[in-house]
């Protein structure tokens, strides 16, 4: 049982490059989230989705895009990478009844 799988785990980007962080879950959860974690700042919500075809902005969506074409996948896209996007990114899901959030292991992104 893989749970929530994030790829890549580590990535270095140059300013202006684009990339996609992948998130896949095999638990058939409707709700999925992307958070970023910066030192001393806790986790900030970037985008979330309540089901396939539905996405909503979180607290810090600027510079990111998401899509949710399937229940399983929730990729996060960075179009023009900036140093301010250097962070650790976590994907998460919850069961339909809530109660517990399952986190992926994180993706460490550095923009230079």
């Amino acid at each position, binding site marked *: 049982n893989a749970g929530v799988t994030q790829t890549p785990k580590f990535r270095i980007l140059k300013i202006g490059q684009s990339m996609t962080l992948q998130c896949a879950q095999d638990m058939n959860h*409707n*709700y999925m*989230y992307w*958070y970023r974690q910066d030192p*001393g*700042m*806790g*986790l*900030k*919500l970037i985008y*979330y989705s*309540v089901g396939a075809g539905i996405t909503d902005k*979180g607290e810090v969506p600027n510079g990111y895009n998401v899509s949710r074409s399937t229940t399983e996948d929730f990729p996060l896209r960075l179009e023009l990478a900036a140093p301010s996007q250097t962070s650790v990114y*976590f994907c998460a899901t*919850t*069961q*339909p*009844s*809530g*109660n*517990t*959030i399952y*986190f*992926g*292991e*994180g993706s460490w992104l550095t923009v230079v």
Partner: protein
Amino acid sequence: AQSVTQPDIHITVSEGASLELRCNYSYGATPYLFWYVQSPGQGLQLLLKYFSGDTLVQGIKGFEAEFKRSQSSFNLRKPSVHWSDAAEYFCAVGRDSGNTPLVFGKGTRLSVIA
């Protein structure tokens, strides 16, 4: 909107000593409260959660937390800390049982000394 404050950025305790990590929340209705732990280079692991009922909640690894509505607090405690407890601890609040996105505190880093 809900918010979470963890007043202590960094706490150092001796192994075997007791621990209390503070968490204060702001939310107009009954909150759903969580504590997560993050070891270096790892993801977040749920320690415990409070939705309703008994205000003293037991979690994994010997942790417990007490919900005090009058103080808007949900402090995490452990009677005897082990060196392996050194990690970052996050308190989080939600509007319902978990489907709406959680709001996290900024975290408290716990160091354990011999």
